């Protein structure tokens, strides 16, 4: 069998009109990578319309582009050298299309940055250089183009090189290759130019061939973000498969593993494959699936690691660099969705350390928000603990995006975890309690009157299993003469302004709303009952905090995945509605909440 050729994605970036499309057209034409007759057809079309032929026309696949004359989106084309196959990604230079440039560049392992020798370094020459480093592209070559317009003048080339090297130094980037080229005339593209005898380095094609792909990180610590958990029961399949991609490291059957942030542990039983039988090992880059020796309750989003290796951080606060592409600015104390590896959690911006102007390299302090196209160093707070690494340790688990109103609006890299006591929720509760005008009737007086303390009863279980028991509980308590209420309004009907079908954010809106309602209703002396499907520890903590100082009681139906006695009472999934309700009432009596003695 013939050995497969290596493939590399290269992105072409630079300021608008500096000649990116022409360079690509040249690379395609001069490596004989164009479909038969394409070059002739475009030449003919130009003659037909009396326009001078341009190599850039070869790429103008879309009609939009032809009329506007600029690249609006990343387009892919393919060419080959002796060494490997290239997928070339043409990224738009115009600032309006930054998100498209980022999309193209994030897929690349190498970049060619084009600077017009005649026009010199422009805003996006710098911005794109900065973004390449942000996105983690290590192979960058600077092509100083249109050398024909400056009569192949060595001093002009060297001036640009010196200026750009200064810029690179300021943003802590290593100096890189500079090549004087003329894409239009094919100078220094696939062969060294005779017109530029003073240049002794590589031509563009050689520079590309000399790039090295990142070595797969097999030797590193294992990071396996759990993408999903499958239990396909069809055709008698009993396997419970933990699915995802190995982002770094290696994992073998028999390995002891720990899942973060839950800290549950198990051992790898099998590495599943289709259609072949099981493999003994999975390495970085592979999409894989595992079965475990023990049944543990974990959720998609957790990171599986090897127990004896250095583990990722687990925290709710982190410091990060972000770049913002959203139409609306990034503001503090608003719920966004964070996606990091396979985790999705609500996140808030809590602090802006500074905003960096990538062109002027000045840093702006005291800015209240992060505007479109800004790059900023910020502190974020997630609603739940997440597992992550520093960007300098393992990049794959340190990169994240922020979703605002269904769109990926920002990208970021984590610099370090931040360990603080303070939380946005804590501040909110403090403020709420401080500003609350207290009722003249104290909770104790109410408890005496109603002959029971107030409490929030959360009935938690797999989807919709809690409803019948909750109804029976309300009825039983009511018949006992207790002041009780079952909250059955779907929260999206209550929440004003917070309408979204984003399940991650919807869930947090729901819980926040519920927590606030619970605080008011339990303050009024109620035994408030509500059902929630599969609440986790962080969500429970949030509800408890919001409901404080009133007590919260948790009844879990089915498998108890909680630790540290978070659930007060466990009921089986087969439990009848009335017997379940009786058990809850008994529990409430036992824990003094309903004790008639209390009122004496």
């Amino acid at each position, binding site marked *: 069998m013939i050995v*497969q050729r290596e493939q590399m994605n290269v992105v072409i970036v630079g300021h608008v009109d500096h000649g990116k499309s022409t360079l690509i057209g040249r690379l395609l034409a001069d490596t004989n990578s164009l479909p038969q007759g394409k070059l002739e057809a475009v030449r003919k079309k130009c003659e037909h319309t009396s326009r001078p032929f341009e190599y850039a026309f070869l790429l103008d696949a879309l009609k939009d582009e032809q009329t506007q004359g600029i690249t609006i*989106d*990343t387009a892919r084309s393919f060419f080959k050298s002796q060494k490997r196959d290239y*997928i070339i990604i043409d990224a738009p230079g115009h600032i309006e299309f930054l998100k498209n440039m980022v999309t193209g560049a994030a897929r690349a392992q190498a970049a060619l940055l084009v600077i017009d020798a005649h026009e010199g370094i422009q805003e996006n020459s710098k911005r794109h250089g900065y973004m390449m480093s942000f996105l983690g592209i290590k192979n960058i070559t600077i092509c100083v183009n249109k050398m024909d317009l400056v009569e192949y003048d060595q001093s002009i080339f060297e001036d640009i090189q010196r200026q750009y090297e200064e810029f690179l130094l300021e943003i802590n980037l290593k100096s890189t290759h500079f090549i004087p080229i003329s894409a239009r005339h094919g100078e220094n593209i696939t062969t060294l130019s005779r017109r530029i005898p003073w240049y002794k380095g590589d031509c563009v094609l050689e520079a590309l061939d000399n790039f090295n792909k990142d070595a797969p990180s097999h030797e590193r610590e294992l990071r396996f973000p759990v993408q999903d958990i*499958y239990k396909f029961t069809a055709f008698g399949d009993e396997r419970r498969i933990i699915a995802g991609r190995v982002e770094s490291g290696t994992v073998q059957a028999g390995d002891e593993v720990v899942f973060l942030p839950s800290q549950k542990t198990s051992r790898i039983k099998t590495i599943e494959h289709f259609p072949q039988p099981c493999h003994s090992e999975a390495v970085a880059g592979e999409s894989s699936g595992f079965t475990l020796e023990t049944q543990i309750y974990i959720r998609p989003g957790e990171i599986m690691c090897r127990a004896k290796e250095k583990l990722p951080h687990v925290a709710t606060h982190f410091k990060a660099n972000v770049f913002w592409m959203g139409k609306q600015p990034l503001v503090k104390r608003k719920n966004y969705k964070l996606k990091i590896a396979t985790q999705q959690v609500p996140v808030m911006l809590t602090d802006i350390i500074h905003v960096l102007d990538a062109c002027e390299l000045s840093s702006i302090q005291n800015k209240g928000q992060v505007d479109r196209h800004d790059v900023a160093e910020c502190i974020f707070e997630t609603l739940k603990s997440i597992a992550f690494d520093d960007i300098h340790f393992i990049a794959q688990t340190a990169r994240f*995006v922020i979703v605002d109103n269904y769109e990926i609006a920002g990208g970021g890299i984590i610099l370090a975890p931040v360990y603080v006591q303070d939380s946005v929720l804590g501040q909110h509760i403090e403020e709420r309690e401080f500003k609350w005008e207290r009722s003249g009737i104290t909770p104790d007086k109410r408890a005496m009157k109603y002959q029971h303390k107030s409490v929030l009863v959360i009935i938690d279980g797999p989807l919709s299993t809690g409803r019948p028991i909750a109804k029976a509980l309300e009825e039983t308590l009511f018949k006992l003469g207790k002041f009780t209420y079952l909250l059955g309004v779907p929260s999206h009907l209550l929440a004003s302004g917070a309408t979204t079908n984003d399940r991650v954010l919807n869930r947090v809106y729901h819980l926040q709303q519920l927590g606030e309602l619970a605080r008011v209703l339990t303050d009024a002396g109620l035994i408030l009952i509500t059902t929630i499907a599969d609440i986790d520890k962080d969500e429970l903590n949030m509800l408890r905090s919001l409901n404080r100082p009133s007590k919260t009681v948790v009844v879990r139906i089915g498998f108890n995945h909680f630790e540290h006695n978070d659930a007060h009472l466990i009921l089986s999934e087969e439990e009848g509605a009335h017997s379940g309700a009786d058990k809850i009432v008994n529990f409430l009596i036992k824990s003094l909440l309903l004790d008639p003695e209390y009122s004496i």
Partner: protein
Amino acid sequence: MKNKTLSKLDDLEAQSVYILREAYREFKSLAMLWSIGKDSTVLLWLARKAFLGHVPFPLVHIDTSYKIPEMITYRDQLAREWNLNMIYGQNTEAIKAKHTFPEGAIDRLSCCKLLKTEALRHTLAGDWPRYRLNHQTSQYELDTNKEPYTGVIVGVRADEEGSRSKERYFSPRDRNNDWDVGDQPPELWNQFKTDFAPGTHLRIHPLLDWTELNIWEYIERENIPITSLYFDQGNGKRYRSLGCYPCTFPVESTARTVHEIVEELRTGKFANIAERAGRAQDKDDGGGLETLRRDGYM
């Protein structure tokens, strides 16, 4: 095995599987388009890889009634063998009224629009009948599920033609199936647009980075069953791309095996000729296919 390195095909496979799994986790109402051609059959194989032998969503085929008959036989045979949740949709009205290009009523592009684009739009939306394979009877029956699919997995590749080179892995479509090429979501570090406003849906493209050669190399490596129309049956002709018989023409080729096709693409006469050269409707669209694609054509 410590130094096991992944090949180009391994990388492509891992990425496609990752995208399929993202789609399955994020979309409640998910379907995969299966055109019976090599690309979407590779996609189907990748789904079985991703879900360890299962295909946990329906496969949708748009039957124009002008498909090469072998394609339908092959479709139903695999559907039975692999226990697929197989669904087809059709523009029955236009076919009954003979309002088609082969009947001489309309031009090629209008025919594509009616029999493919329209049929697809309404089948995905659920407002036209869907026919589902009953594995007990081996017959197609009217499907009771009329829920619109909010995630649609499609086997397009960036190297096919110009407009496809600008697609995203997760590409939003509005209520009318429209694709706004100028305003597409960013995709970075394997984070895709999986959130969508009510009324919109997403097309998911796990094969975007594959080339025609990659597809055949993978078919060879994995030994994926592929319809015999792609091979020379003895008359020196084979199909390079499959579609409706009035508009798809075989190419001159004596390739009889997958391996011979791989060789032909790698070094032979097709190395520099566009794959869709045998598709007549592309030419009628000024070479762009974009008019059709904006309207939801695959």
